[in-house]
């Protein structure tokens, strides 16, 4: 009973996060300007981080937690660097 409930909840959450990643990817590809693409990339990073957490619940393995922590840190650094590039034209002055 509880295994069935958990299985369907995890599957629904994974499908929802997969659709969310596809929507963010569509915005990243079709964004009219560069800042739209950067925002789509940031959302894609965040959605993939959440998807890794849900994978951790599905398998019961705590290794996925470290993967999602690394994805979150890299997404933060990437978005800050791209925003700095859009503002100044170079990352490190």
């Amino acid at each position: 009973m509880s295994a069935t409930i958990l299985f369907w909840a995890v599957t629904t959450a994974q499908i929802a996060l997969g659709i969310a990643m596809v929507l963010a990817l569509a915005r990243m590809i079709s964004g009219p300007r560069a800042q739209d693409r950067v925002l789509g990339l940031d959302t894609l990073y965040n959605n993939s981080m959440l998807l890794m957490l849900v994978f951790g619940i599905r398998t019961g393995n705590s290794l996925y937690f470290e993967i999602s922590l690394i994805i979150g840190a890299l997404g933060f650094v990437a978005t800050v660097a791209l925003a700095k590039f859009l503002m100044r034209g170079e990352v490190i002055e």
Partner: protein
Amino acid sequence: MNHAADLPIWATLLIALFLLIGAGLTLVGSFGLYHLRSFYDRIHAPTLGTSWGTAGIAIASVIYFSVVESQLVLHQLLIGVFVMATTPVTLILLSRAALYRDRTENNRDVPPLHPLRNLPQASELEQDSMATHKNAGEEQK
């Protein structure tokens, strides 16, 4: 799904509730990112996923690992705290960069940097008041 059969029913329902809240809010936020019209509308939408989306899935993960390992596991809240601390920084930097780019291109959709400088009424009023002051000073002499 190795240990899922051992879970009590209240823990399962709580995990399912928080998972569905988190994943649903993230989906709504990403749909808003795809659907909204201008960039300044769009930048609000993914914060649904970074606030309660991340919090819901992190809380579900905390409950699952705490019940399975029968001790309190709070690792996953670290991700929630990290994301909530870094999202405003990145989005403020990104929106300031977008505003700077729009202003350098003289885009009509964004407000100008000095709103009063471009209004003819304001400058004329200022000149009028200065002229009257000058006239009053000359009359006193």
